[in-house]
């Protein structure tokens, strides 16, 4: 499909670096599916749908900088929704959101709430004012907070807070956040042999977004993050490249930085 025209109808500054753009397009999507967002004349980047009619953008570079500065009436191009989303399983679930990773998890929380599931969400960020959707998640279930600098909630990494829960008691765990946070959570789940009960939304460099070019494939399975993912089961990821390396736009392997640098 060619990009559809979407006009920005509302701009919400969620945190100092994260902005939600509401659009005049409502997409029928599963929680965890993404769209390709075209900033005309500049770039096109993948973004989760945080609502059926909104994306939530963290400013990290050129395209996200322009998106973060958009005003009501500005327009972008939208292709999608693409990819496989999260699947709700069981009755007692945990959501683990690091940074902007809360964006694809919010529609899942809303769906789980509508279905009356018992839900615990862990929201983590570097500092208290960077916590995303804490209030929205708390409308759908219990919320625990972790910040690196201790300015709010638990003082430390999300993974340390996760470790304080009886994870066995959850039917399914849903995770999205910085790569090494996800790897940290996967390691914890694996140690308790419950990795098959988890779903992770991955981030890789996307070009086509539709499963043809091969830019986003992960080792060693050759699965495409854009089409076979972005959501993968934890047991699929155990022997994968997750947390070890990813590829840049050229296809070259980039070894993962340290945990602190990636959050």
């Amino acid at each position, binding site marked *: 499909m060619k990009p559809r025209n979407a006009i920005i109808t509302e701009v919400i500054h969620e945190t100092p670096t994260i902005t939600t753009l509401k659009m005049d397009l409502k997409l029928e999507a599963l929680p965890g599916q993404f769209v390709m967002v075209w900033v005309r004349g500049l*770039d*096109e980047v993948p973004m989760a749908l945080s609502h059926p009619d909104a994306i939530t953008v963290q400013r990290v570079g050129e395209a996200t900088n322009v998106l973060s500065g958009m005003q009501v009436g500005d327009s972008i191009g939208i292709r999608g929704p693409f990819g496989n989303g999260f699947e709700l399983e069981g009755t007692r679930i945990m959501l683990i959101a690091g940074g902007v990773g809360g964006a694809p998890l919010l529609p899942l929380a809303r769906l789980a709430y509508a279905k009356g599931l018992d839900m615990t969400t862990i929201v983590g960020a570097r500092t208290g004012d960077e916590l995303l959707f804490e209030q929205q998640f708390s409308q759908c279930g219990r919320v625990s907070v972790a910040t690196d600098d201790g300015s709010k909630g638990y003082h430390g990494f999300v993974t340390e807070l996760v470790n304080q829960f009886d994870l066995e008691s959850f039917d399914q765990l849903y995770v999205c956040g910085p790569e090494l946070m996800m790897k940290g959570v996967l390691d914890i789940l694996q140690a308790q042999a419950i990795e098959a009960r988890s779903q992770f939304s991955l981030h890789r460099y996307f070009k086509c977004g539709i499963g043809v070019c091969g830019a986003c*494939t992960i*080792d060693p*399975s050759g699965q495409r993050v854009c089409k076979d993912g972005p959501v993968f089961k934890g047991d699929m990821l155990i022997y994968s490249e997750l947390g070890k390396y990813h590829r840049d*736009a050229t*296809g070259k392997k980039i070894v993962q930085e340290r945990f602190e640098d990636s959050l």
Partner: protein
Amino acid sequence: MARTDLSIELTGLALENPAILAAGVLGTTGSSLKRIADSGAGAVVTKSIGIEPKPGHPNPTMFKLGCGFLNAMGLPNPSYKEFRGELITAREGGVPVIASVFGAHPDEFSQIITGLDGADAYELNVSCPHASGYGAAVGTDPVLVTEITKAAKQAANAPVWVKLTPNVTDIVEIGEAAQKGGADAVVAINTVRGMAIDIHSGYPILGNRFGGLSGAAIHPVAVKCVYDLYQALDIPVIGVGGIANYQDVVEMMMAGACAVQIGSAVYDSINIFNEVTAGLARYLADNSMELDDIIGMAHRKVGR
């Protein structure tokens, strides 16, 4: 029931079936190529590899149209030095791995081929509109095509295929130039130049402004190119362009292709190779024919 034999010998390589993954599609990594080998491809072609790492064009780099796909990837690749490891992994797939190579002049092709030792064959991409230096001229200048093919043949200790662009007045002239340079086979066709413009804003959609059309829209163009090349050349012709099912394979072979490549159709199904080979085997069995019977059949029907 005995399975119809689809195995072929192509420029000295043994293929279990004639359905090959086309260059630039799911060919970024060794494990991706291996996955396609596991899904039934008779051979796989890597993405086109150059001298230096290249990030390619800005996005959008590819999208679907009603009639096919437009892409302008811009030859993203990590350089041949970085790609060596991927080639080794790809070969674990157990099918021939053809390294696609692009460059601006004969020396660059030689350097990459020498540096990417270990491929089962090399496919020279003299058909992409984005190569630096000679640019689009690389594959449209018959003298250059002969020189590049010669240089590649000297550098390679494996067969050399030359992939042709349809964006020329006469593709046969370029095919003959490749044959003259010693090519073991030609591959036709690469994408057909195209463009799309966003009517909401007036911006060209592709980051590169224009790009290449692939998929169903170019199938008739590819059939005609293969038909003409088969008639003029003595070396094998490999057909590519808009193949999405076994009927398309049969048609391409009737035009003269002894093998086919499939690119865009992985969009519909990653299992496309198994699907088309199963269909082809059934077709041949139902009609009591072998592969050789259909290759070039259209020429024999009309007596050339």
